[in-house]
């Protein structure tokens, strides 16, 4: 039972919050929902592509290794290994050292970071396949192919409520400002559109590049690495390869990067949204399993050339 002053507080709160009518329009909400879905596509694409651009530039780290054992698919780690391998992946909870196979290691974060940086710098134009699974409120899956030389990306996404989409993300510059252009084809409406976002400076509202975006600028990555907040959280055998898990915070939770202990190439990146922050979690998690593929003409064309399905109608990006 509330005390008199708690009861009074309730009355005061009601009076304070009353008197402002609010009648949202369904059409407007649906429009916002569509825009939000598209921003999500861009954010997913830029997450992976940003990682490879950084890798190609030798800036490494931070974004690249989605890890954790939340993925449902087994994962191969290392150059030219194929995703979805046959061996079983040990399961563990993020925050714990990954699995029962965990063994004490002498690697320090600084040592591992240096090895990862060297490994990424030695990658010669591989096409990176990133099989992503997102669970929680946004329950969908998709596959990205990323050109580590250009940073461009092709994505095929299937959402449980939004259907199938294809997207091509490419990077450029205008007036000294780095830009990202995304072409999206949506099978639910047989339409496609193109949109361009600035990637530096004051990002426009709705851009994937904001304080809560998983995309990190080089300066942010350096800050992240230098922050002393990264830690090694475990070792796990994935498809016969020992992988090292590094974890660091980001604006909306934390991210982990799992790297092969032999090649030091990222094999998995895991992002947990809103974790460990004392607020309601909707268990949003994104796992990306990375496969490093040799650069072939067909893969290069698939990633860098836009192929909108026949019969699709172009619409404005705001529709």
């Amino acid at each position, binding site marked *: 039972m509330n005390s008199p002053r708690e009861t009074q*507080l*309730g009355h005061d709160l009601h009076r*304070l919050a009353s008197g402002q009518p609010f009648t*949202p329009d369904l059409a407007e*909400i649906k429009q916002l929902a569509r825009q939000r879905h598209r921003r999500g596509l861009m954010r997913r694409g830029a997450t992976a592509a940003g990682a490879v651009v950084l890798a190609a530039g030798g800036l490494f780290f931070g974004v690249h290794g989605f890890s954790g054992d939340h993925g449902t698919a087994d994962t191969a780690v290392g150059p030219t290994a194929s995703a979805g391998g046959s061996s079983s992946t040990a399961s563990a909870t993020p925050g714990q050292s990954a699995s029962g196979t965990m063994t004490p290691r002498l690697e320090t974060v600084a040592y591992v970071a240096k090895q990862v940086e060297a490994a990424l710098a030695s990658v010669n134009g591989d096409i990176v396949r990133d099989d992503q699974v997102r669970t929680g409120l*946004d329950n969908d899956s998709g596959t990205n192919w990323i050109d580590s030389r250009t940073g461009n990306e092709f994505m095929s996404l299937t959402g449980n409520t939004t259907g199938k989409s294809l997207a091509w993300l490419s990077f450029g510059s205008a007036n000294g400002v780095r830009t990202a252009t995304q072409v999206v084809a949506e099978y639910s409406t047989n339409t496609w559109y193109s949109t361009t976002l600035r990637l530096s400076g004051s990002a426009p509202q709705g851009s994937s590049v904001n304080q809560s975006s998983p995309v990190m600028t080089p300066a942010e990555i350096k800050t992240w690495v230098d922050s002393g907040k990264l830690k090694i959280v475990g070792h796990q055998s994935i498809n016969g390869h020992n992988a090292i898990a590094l974890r660091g915070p980001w604006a909306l939770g934390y991210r982990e990067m799992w790297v092969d202990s032999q090649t030091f190439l990222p094999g998995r990146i895991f992002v947990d949204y809103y974790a460990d922050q004392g*607020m309601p*979690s909707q268990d949003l998690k994104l796992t990306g399993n990375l496969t490093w593929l040799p650069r072939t003409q067909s893969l290069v064309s698939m990633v860098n050339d836009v192929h909108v399905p026949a019969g699709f109608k172009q619409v404005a990006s705001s529709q």
Partner: protein
Amino acid sequence: MNSRDEEFGEFMRNRASPLHQSAYLLCGDWHLAHDLVQDTLAKAYLHWPRVRQADSQDAYVRRILLNEARGRWRRRERTAAVSRFPEGREPVAPDATDEITRRAGLLQALQSLPLRQRATIVLRYLEGMSERETAGVLGCSEGTVKSQSARALGTLRNYLDRTESTL
């Protein structure tokens, strides 16, 4: 209009105003509250099949609202100074005989609370939720709700003491 739109439309008509009121107390600005609820409803619409399967659609959408509020709060913290009281100064309720000023004092005092405590106050005393229900929305234990409430009421004690003296 399809069945999804009809279902969601009914939910929106019933719940938009209470969500709007909660959002206002969370962010302290009607325009921000408007945007916050619009974004919340858009997200709920996008994921309606999942929302409608929840034990409590209302609790689920309130979680979305709180997460949206927190995301904005974090971005705001990183880009601009948050309106806080100067060091060593606690919010003081103004003259209780002035109703408008008194409400402004309450709003100011609320905004001085950490977001989680503010959310607890809004759910407990605006929405009239029990500690168990509040814990369900916040995703924490009832004990945490109790401690968060106690801390928040402690911070608001100047306002509450002044109010109590006028009862």
